[in-house]
C-alpha cells in the first residue's frame, strides 16, 4: 500500500528539491557575473568567483575599478546614452502609430479594413531577415544608415505588426456602444480616440511599451545591420559584443560591461513584471 502511495503521488521533498536545483541553475550564472565584475583583475584571472563565498563580507576583496574602466575607456557610457536614445524613439513612435492604426482598424468602419488587417497579420510571418538587404540599400541611398533616426524608423517598421495585432485584440474587446454614444454626443473621432480609447487601454499600452522597450534595448541584430561599424552611435549590446572580441579573456572587464547592459532591463523587469508578462503573452490573453 505504501509503495502504491509513493507511485501515485510525487513526494513534496522531491518537488522542493527539483525547484531548488532549477532556481540555483538559473541564479548562479548571473550571481557569478555580478561578483566577478566587482573583483580585481588579478583575482579574477586566477581564482573562481565562488572563492569569495567563504568570506563574502570581506569588502577589501571588491573593487569598482572595472566599472570605471569600461565606462570610460571601454566606451560603455556613450553606449549607454545611445541605447537610451535608440530605445526611446524606437518605442514611442511604433506604439503611437500602432494605437492609431489599431483604433482605426477596430473602431472605424471603412471599405479596405479587412484588407489592411490581413496585411498586418501577414507581416507577422515575414522574418526581418527578408528585409535587411533592400532596406539597407535604401538607407545607404538616403544616408540613413548609422543614424538614430534611421534606427527609430526601422524599429518602428519591424515592431508595428505585433504592436497593431496586440492592441487590435484589446480594442476589439472595448464595447462599440461606448464609442457610438460618444459619437452621438458630438465627440469627434479624434476625441473618442484620445479621451476614450487611450485611457481605457492603459494596461495594454503599458504592456506593449515595456515589451517594445526591452525588445529594442536588447536588440543586437538590427543595430549591427543598420549602424555599420559606427561605434559612436552603437548601443550597449553592440558595444558589449565587440568588447567580447577585443577583451577576450579579460573577464573582470567583460562582466562589468555585461552587467551595465543588464541594469536597466533588470530594473524594468523587477518593477513591472506583471505588465511584461502580459506583453509577452501578446494578443493571446486579454488585458
Amino acid at each position, binding site marked *: 500500500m505504501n509503495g502504491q502511495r509513493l507511485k501515485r503521488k510525487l513526494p513534496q521533498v522531491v518537488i522542493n528539491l527539483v525547484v531548488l536545483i532549477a532556481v540555483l541553475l538559473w541564479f548562479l550564472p548571473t550571481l557569478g557575473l555580478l561578483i566577478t565584475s566587482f573583483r580585481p583583475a588579478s583575482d579574477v584571472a586566477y581564482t573562481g568567483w565562488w572563492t569569495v563565498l567563504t568570506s563574502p563580507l570581506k569588502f577589501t576583496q571588491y573593487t569598482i575599478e572595472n566599472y570605471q574602466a569600461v565606462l570610460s575607456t571601454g566606451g560603455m557610457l556613450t553606449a549607454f546614452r545611445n541605447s537610451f536614445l535608440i530605445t526611446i524613439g524606437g518605442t514611442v513612435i511604433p506604439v503611437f502609430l500602432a494605437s492609431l492604426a489599431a483604433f482605426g482598424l477596430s473602431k472605424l468602419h471603412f471599405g479596405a479594413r479587412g484588407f489592411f488587417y490581413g496585411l498586418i497579420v501577414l507581416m507577422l510571418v515575414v522574418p526581418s531577415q527578408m528585409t535587411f538587404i533592400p532596406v539597407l540599400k*535604401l538607407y545607404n541611398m538616403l544616408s540613413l544608415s548609422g543614424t538614430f533616426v534611421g534606427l527609430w524608423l526601422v524599429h518602428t517598421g519591424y515592431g508595428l505588426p505585433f504592436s497593431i495585432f496586440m492592441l487590435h485584440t484589446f480594442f476589439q474587446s472595448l464595447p462599440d456602444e461606448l464609442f457610438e454614444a460618444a459619437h452621438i454626443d458630438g465627440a469627434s473621432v479624434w476625441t473618442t480616440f484620445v479621451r476614450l480609447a487611450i485611457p481605457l487601454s492603459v494596461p495594454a499600452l503599458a504592456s506593449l511599451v515595456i515589451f517594445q522597450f526591452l525588445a529594442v534595448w536588447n536588440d543586437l541584430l538590427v543595430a549591427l545591420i543598420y549602424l555599420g561599424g559606427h561605434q559612436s552611435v552603437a548601443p550597449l549590446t553592440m558595444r558589449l559584443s565587440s568588447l567580447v572580441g577585443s577583451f577576450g579573456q579579460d573577464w573582470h572587464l567583460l562582466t562589468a560591461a555585461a552587467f551595465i547592459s543588464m541594469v536597466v532591463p533588470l530594473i524594468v*523587469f523587477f518593477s513591472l513584471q506583471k505588465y511584461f508578462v502580459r506583453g509577452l503573452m501578446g494578443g493571446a490573453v486579454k488585458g
Partner: protein
Amino acid sequence: MKRKIGGVTPLVYVGPAVLFLLVYQVYPALQTIYFSFMDRRSQAFVGLDNYRYVFTSSVMLTAFRNNLLWLIFFTAGTVGLGLLFAILADRVKHESLAKSVIFMPMAISFVGAGVVWKFMYAYKPPGSEQIGLLNQILVVLGFEPKGWLLQSPLNNFALIAVGLWIWTGYCMVILSAAYKAIPKELMEAAQVDGATDLQVFRHITIPEMRPALTMVITTMLVNVLKIFDIIYVMTNGNFGTEVIANRMFKEMFQFANTGRASAIAVVLFLMIIPIMYANIRQKLREG
C-alpha cells in the same frame, strides 16, 4: 460607430502604419525574393545558382544540421522544462520567487546572456585553477576540464543550453497561466477515482493545455530558426556551430554577396511560414 466613416478620416489613423509596412516589409520582402535570383551585386540573373549554394555548400549544410539540432533539443527542452517548472512551482511555498528567478533571463539581452555563459564555460588547461564554474565542477568530480565551446558537437549543446536558460522562463510563464486555468475539480475528481499523477497529467493536464502548448511550441520553433545573437557572440559560427541566420549575416557583410544572403533569407522565410501559420491561427482563436 457602426456607420461607415467616409473620406480621409480612417486613412489618417491607419495610413501611417500601412505606409511603414509597405516601406519596411512588403517592398523589401519582394525585392529580396528578386535579389535571390541575381548575382552578388544584384546585376545579372543567375537562375537557381544561389539556391544551389544554399542547399549543397558544406557551410550551409552544417548550418542546417545545427538548426535541426536546435529545433529538436531547444524546443523539447524549453517546452518540457517550462511545463515541468510550471507544474512543480505550483506546489512549492515560494512560487512567485522561484518563477521570477527562472523568468529573469528573458529581460536581459542575448548578448548579456552570452557573456554570462561564456564565463560559465571558461576553460583553463588541466592543473591550473579553473575560473569557469562548469569546469570547476568537473574537476571537483575528478574529470578533466572541457573546452565547452570548442569541441564539436559538444559546443552546439553548450549553446543550446544557453538558449534553454533564456527561454524556459517564457514557456513556464505561459504554461503556468494555462495550468492554473484548468478547473481543479476536474483533477480532483480523477484523483478520487484513483488516477495516478501521471494519468492525470496525460489525460487531463495535457489536453486542457493544448492551446497554450501550441502557442509556446510554435513560438520556440520560430525562435530557433531565427537564432542569431547567442551564436554571434559566443562562437560566431566557428568550430562547427554555424546557423542559418548567422551565415546570412556573414554572406551579407563579410562576403558582400547579396544574392546568396537573399536566397538564405528566402529559405528561412519558407521554413517559418507553416509554423507562423499555426501560431497565428492559435492566437486568432483565443483573441
